[in-house]
């Protein structure tokens, strides 16, 4: 039986879909069978970031409605054979989802995969609630800025009240990825420190991803940045997915810029 992880953020544009693509690929690269599902009905993006847009024939709404089988709709990634993808419908909207259909789909996916990663839509409407309803765990993506943190806080609050697991008296595991950190902006106090974000949100830190210009190009090319061994964001996702797959990977302090380290070192000899 696989584990279902919802990738959530509350606010849009913080890098949720990019994170989902990289997490899915990273898990697959660790030898685990993984499926990423785009739950952003009506605003399908994940197919492009995974470089699979021309392969989509059937989407998850058609599977839920019985118009196509799951096998027909699942798309195997070119980058790694362990990674599969289930597309969102681009033509319908979020109102087509209903709890029973979602539960059935997820139950079916759990049989065939070790990890089921759900890319939640931005916002906290019904589409979001359906994404988190049957999740075993959630990965929260935030940027080090106040609006992203507050929206994530709200999304966690809804997760804690609407999830089926919580209703059954269990806990939903929640992990935090802090995305797009710029070290010298954290040092100068323009960006919020990780410790402060953790204090506010009070969930476990899964990893920190530095700002990396390569991410945009990687998305445009449909090759998630984790494939680029030189990319600092890609390295961060490699560490994060290692942790998800049970390896012990130390937290790398990406909030100190090289200039900062240099200053510290020179400071020692003064």
């Amino acid at each position: 039986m696989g584990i279902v992880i919802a990738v959530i953020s509350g606010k849009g544009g913080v890098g949720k879909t990019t994170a989902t693509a990289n997490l899915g690929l990273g898990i697959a690269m660790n030898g685990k069978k993984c499926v990423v599902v785009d739950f952003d009905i009506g605003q399908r993006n994940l197919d492009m970031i995974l470089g699979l847009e021309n392969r989509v024939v059937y989407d998850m709404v058609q599977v839920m409605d019985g118009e196509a089988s799951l096998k027909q709709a699942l798309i195997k990634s070119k980058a790694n054979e362990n990674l599969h993808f289930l597309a969102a419908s681009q033509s319908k909207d979020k109102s087509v989802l209903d709890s029973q259909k979602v539960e059935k789909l997820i139950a079916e996916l759990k049989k065939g995969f070790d990890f089921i990663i759900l890319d939640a839509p931005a916002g906290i409407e019904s589409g979001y609630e359906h994404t988190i309803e049957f999740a075993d765990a959630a990965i929260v993506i935030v940027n080090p800025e106040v609006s992203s943190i507050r929206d994530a806080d709200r999304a966690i609050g809804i997760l804690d009240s609407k999830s089926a697991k919580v209703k059954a008296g269990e806990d939903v595991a929640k992990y935090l990825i802090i995305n797009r950190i710029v070290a010298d902006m954290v040092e100068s106090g323009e960006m919020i420190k990780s410790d402060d974000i953790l204090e506010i949100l009070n969930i476990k830190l899964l990893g920190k991803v530095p700002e990396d210009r390569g991410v945009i190009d990687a998305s445009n090319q449909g090759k998630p940045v984790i494939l680029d061994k030189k990319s600092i964001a890609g390295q961060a996702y490699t560490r994060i997915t290692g942790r998800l797959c049970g390896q012990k990977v130390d937290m790398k302090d990406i909030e100190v810029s090289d200039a900062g380290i240099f200053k510290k070192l020179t400071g020692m000899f003064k």
Partner: protein
Amino acid sequence: MLLKSTQYSIKVFETTITDEIEFMDFFDNNYTLFKDHLIVIKGECSSSIKEYLKSKELTYLNDITLPKGRTRKALEEELKAQNVDAAVLAQIAQSELDKLSNQLQNNLTVLDEIVRSGRELEIKGDLLLLNRVNSGATITTNGNVIITKVVEGAIRCSGNFMMLTASPKANIIFHGVEVDNTLLEDRLNRVELKNNEIIITPVLKKEINWAL
């Protein structure tokens, strides 16, 4: 053997005499008001005044020290001087605790969960919250509020007192009046209503024991 004694609570009129004629006029006019008071004359008291008070059958005392209210700090300093720190400080703490429990209302709700953005908590009675109130959350109570971690959201309290640590982002309204955040120190603050005025007192470290 027990000493036989009786304890009275009496009203005292304390004054200093500057003009004897004025003083006697005042007592002639307000005799009914003060006839049952103990008259305390501070400073000089001439024989003619003594005669006058005796003729009016007024009870009086001259030059005594009456017990007065004082600040807690002064009391502590005095106690320190007497070198009985520990025992007496415990006693002060106990009396503060009594004061607190006197002010507590009913239905104490104890919560230990983050109050996250978007949550609107409405509490009937007192609230003891052992966690944060995040930006975008609102707590409304008609009783007292004690919050032991940082408040960044909104608090609406109409109880006898609040005790909290607030960030500058917080929006705190006590009895319909917005509390000026800059007056709150970066530690527990007691906010209470005294004589229709909101009084903010930072809670000292040694008091935290009972606040928690």
